[in-house]
């Protein structure tokens, strides 16, 4: 199998989905540490979260492409539906965090209110990461338990000769 043959539309999802998983997790970690230490990690975390959130929506798009193909082969498509729901929760939560951060950047609030909003955003980040981890677990389950989008080679591996 050559490089181009590998790229069926259901393979776009695993190619894109790992970026937001890493960026949102590390971004949230940087954001929280940077907020308490009041150092460079805070803006770094924000940038990672902005890119990660864009990546999350791209992954939802590629996931929808894969959905139409793999759902017909799964033994339990309800897991795919839950995976999809949790992916949307993650993307909505981090989109809300991005919008709130941009608003905080452009509108100056009183320190107490500003701090309270940052606290709420960090709570949402922790919740968002927990939801992201569960969505990822379900995605892994679809691949490793139900072979979603997986081409199973023949027992004698003749395709690779």
């Amino acid at each position, binding site marked *: 199998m050559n490089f181009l043959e590998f790229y069926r539309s259901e393979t776009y999802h695993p190619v894109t989905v790992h970026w937001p998983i890493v960026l949102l997790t590390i971004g949230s970690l940087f954001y929280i540490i940077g907020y308490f230490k009041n150092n460079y990690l805070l803006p770094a975390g924000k940038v990672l979260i902005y890119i990660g959130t864009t990546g999350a929506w791209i992954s939802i798009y590629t996931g929808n492409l894969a*959905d139409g193909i793999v*759902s*017909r082969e*799964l033994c*339990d*498509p309800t897991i795919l*539906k839950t995976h999809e*729901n949790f992916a*949307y929760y993650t993307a909505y939560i981090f989109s809300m965090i991005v919008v709130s951060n941009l608003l905080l950047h452009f509108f100056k609030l009183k320190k107490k209110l500003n701090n309270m909003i940052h606290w*709420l955003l960090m709570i949402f980040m922790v919740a968002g990461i927990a939801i992201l981890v569960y969505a990822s677990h379900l995605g892994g389950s679809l691949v490793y338990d139900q072979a979603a989008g997986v081409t199973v080679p023949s027992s004698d591996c003749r395709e690779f000769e």
Partner: protein
Amino acid sequence: MKKSFFLLAIFASFFFFSCSQSTDVVDTGTYTGTVDEVEPEKTEIYVETEDGKILELYFTDATTLTKDGVDAEFSELEEGQKVEVELERIGKRLDPIAVRILE
């Protein structure tokens, strides 16, 4: 602060409830219901049965679609139509064998 957390919890619960989509699994058989959603690019429909269950059905190569006893195109399916679906349960997947548009 307590009040803020309480409001946050209510907001989060409402948010999750409003944007989630759940489907049901039923046994092999024939069901009547209403088309809840049509996704032409995936040749997929959601049907709400008379007892309120939501069935997610992906058409296969073997699925037949008819209207008034004659073959119909997938594009004839619309939200709100009454349909009768004959389906086979494989694991927890529901494969539509026949979909009949009733009105």
